[in-house]
């Protein structure tokens, strides 16, 4: 780690510490936890963009799938719903699988006659789709009717929630695989539009398929991997500790819970970071940089570019999925409406860019910095607004506009930071180390 990096990290730590001391420990820890989760997501994006040069702006979709995994793994199962529609759902799934198989077989058979092949496959897919719907629609209707206000979905498996993080990664990776297969060869603009679109489609499914995770009605009360504050408050050890520290019991319990989360997230981030650093320093990293520089030449040098792209794409998406799962766990709920591109794609991208694309240390740093700014911009905005408007006359419409919406300044602040960093440190605050850079 060079001096600049150390200095920047130290400054970040100092800022967080000052939040703890000047504002409150709870707030500081809340921010840190989110920073850690953001860092995981940023690492995922960094694998795709910084390392493989793939402009994937479908991060939101991976995060949502990761979050969905938490519901499917750790929520308690709704047996009544399974009884009502489980069979129908499985039947339609079986039909879909069968359809895919038949379609594949036709694809092989009619290999030499493209028109016939296309027609046959389309016909098979279409009729399979219609057939599956015969079971699917009544089944989902039945499921959604089961205690619609609080259930109305299949529920999960009731497994430990930390396991769902891993599964979340796997889910996101599995989704990324076909997406990557389809889009990995596209150039950056197209890849951007395509992945953006696909993530919107994923979200449309999550929002509208209620039997899966209650759609827009949200799944709340998901289990957590840490104790509840109220349990801690009544624990003897905690009470003694509170007395000893001279802290209100309620504050201490809340701090302890947050610290427990911090420990979990730190561990996950640490493992992912280590694995990625290792990969980057190995010939894999060199190969990826070569591919990023010139795909065609890499291909001529025997590198299977499509496969490598897919590899990075899936790996990155899986990491984002893990981050998404951790986030849902921390919130304790899965909110389909919460997935907005500005928050789950754009913000993560800003973190990577500002931190320094291609450099995992930079990405992590960017995540800390940007999440901090994102959360604190509101306070800063308030302060800025009052500072700026102090100069304006009370009746001034500009002043009114400022005072009305300090929260809005959050976006402007983000835009300004982004533009300034790009302008004056285009390779980020902690740039990737390459042989002497040329324009």
């Amino acid at each position: 780690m060079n001096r600049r990096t150390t200095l920047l990290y130290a400054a970040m730590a100092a800022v967080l510490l000052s939040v703890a001391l000047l504002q409150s420990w709870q707030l500081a820890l809340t921010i840190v936890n989110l920073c850690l989760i953001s860092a995981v997501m940023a690492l995922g994006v960094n694998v795709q963009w910084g390392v493989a040069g793939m402009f994937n702006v479908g991060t939101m979709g991976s995060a949502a799938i990761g979050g969905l995994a938490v519901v499917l793994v750790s929520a308690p199962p709704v047996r009544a719903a399974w009884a009502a529609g489980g069979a129908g759902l499985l039947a339609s799934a079986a039909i879909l699988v069968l359809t895919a198989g038949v379609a594949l077989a036709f694809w092989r058979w009619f290999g030499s006659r493209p028109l016939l092949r296309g027609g046959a496959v389309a016909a098979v897919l279409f009729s399979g789709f219609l057939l599956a719907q015969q079971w699917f629609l009544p089944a989902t209707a039945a499921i959604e009717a089961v205690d619609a206000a609080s259930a109305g979905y299949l529920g999960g498996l009731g497994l430990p929630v930390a396991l769902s993080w891993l599964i979340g990664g796997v889910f996101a990776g599995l989704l990324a695989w076909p997406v990557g297969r389809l889009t990995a060869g596209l150039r950056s603009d197209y890849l951007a539009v395509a992945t953006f679109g696909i993530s919107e489609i994923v979200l449309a499914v999550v929002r509208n398929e209620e039997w899966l995770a209650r759609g827009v009605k949200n799944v709340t009360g998901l289990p957590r991997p840490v104790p509840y504050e109220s349990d801690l408050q009544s624990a003897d050890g905690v009470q003694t500790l509170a007395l000893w520290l001279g802290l209100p019991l309620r504050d201490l319990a809340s701090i302890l819970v947050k610290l427990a989360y911090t420990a979990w997230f730190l561990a996950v981030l640490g493992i992912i970071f280590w694995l990625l650093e290792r990969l980057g320093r190995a010939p894999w990293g060199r190969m990826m940089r070569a591919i990023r520089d010139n795909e065609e030449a890499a291909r001529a040098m025997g590198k299977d570019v499509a496969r490598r792209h897919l590899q990075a794409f899936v790996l990155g998406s899986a990491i984002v999925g893990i981050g998404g799962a951790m986030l849902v766990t921390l919130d304790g709920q899965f909110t389909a409406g919460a997935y907005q591109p500005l928050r789950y794609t754009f913000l993560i991208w800003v973190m990577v860019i500002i931190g320094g694309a291609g450099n995992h240390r930079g990405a992590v740093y960017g995540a800390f910095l940007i999440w901090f700014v994102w959360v604190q911009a509101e306070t800063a905005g308030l302060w800025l607004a009052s500072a700026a408007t102090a100069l304006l006359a009370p009746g001034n419409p500009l002043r009114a506009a400022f005072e009305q919406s300090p929260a809005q300044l959050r976006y402007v602040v983000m835009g300004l930071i982004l533009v300034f960093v790009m302008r004056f440190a285009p390779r980020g605050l902690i740039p990737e180390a390459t042989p002497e850079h040329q324009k």
Partner: protein
Amino acid sequence: MTDLLNGLIHLTSMLVLPGLAYGSQLAFGALGVTLIFGVLRFSNFAHAEGMSLGTAVCILLTLWLQGKGIALGPLPTALIGMCLAVPVMALVFIGTDRALYQHFRRINARPEVFMIVSAGVMLIMNGAIRLIVGPDGREFEDGERFIVTAGGFRAWSGLAEPLVLKTSQAMTIGLALAVGFALFLFLNRTRSGRSMRAYADNRNLALLSGVDPDRIVRLTWVLVAVLSVTGGVLFGLDKGYRPFVYQQLLLPMFAAAVVGGLGSPLGAIAGSMIVAFSELALTFAWKKALGYLLPAAWAPEGLMQFLSTDYKFAISFLILVVVLLVRPAGLFGKPVK
């Protein structure tokens, strides 16, 4: 016979006209996107915000004009406001370029860098819009709203199905086609247009051929200002101005530009129509139309919808992905290496 007419009128008013109008509205955006991509070589994420900002400026100017008692008779006053807003926005765009993009061009930054910077610009413009007009919606349409009204048409034709044509729709459709074609001619037939394309292709060599790069950049932004203000205002007239609705157009706009082939004006128009019509046609409930057009015995029971409207977004992307896989350069794009 009346059934047939009713069916056709139904299709026209529910599918064809909305499709054309929506397609044309997309087309203005897609043309801007495609032009910026074609000449300045980046995908401008701030484009939708630019349209919104242009419309906001136009609304302020229109209010001012209306306050002075200026009107255009049957046409909306906003048309004058629009003409006044174009130079303002041209200045805004050129200013942004001077402050930001110019630097990145100079250091020969990768296209992704431009995209990212434009995302920053998007946020800043977003803030500017809030300052100027706030987040609330506004109606600023005046003049004659309809060319053909539902009641008027029913009374005139005696048919059960209504036909509606709005002034703003008619203007949008007409202008989109005209502007797209003019842009095509400009780029291919004029010296300036050719210089723009040459500049896009190989900046260094363009310089060596005597092209003034600054002029090209200015010219591009002026054209973009014309396109985005016109498109933004027409959209606002038709749907009612809401500042942040334009963001929602960004994606279909890009999809349209990509389907048509980034960089190709005719492609942008074709792509917009394809996106608009596929969104509408696949989620269209064909029940009524088929009921009119088919013999009574065959009249369908269900809605005859291919896909529920929940997934209409998915359609443009499905098309997009298919086009990208089959013809990566888009329908009108030229594959060049």
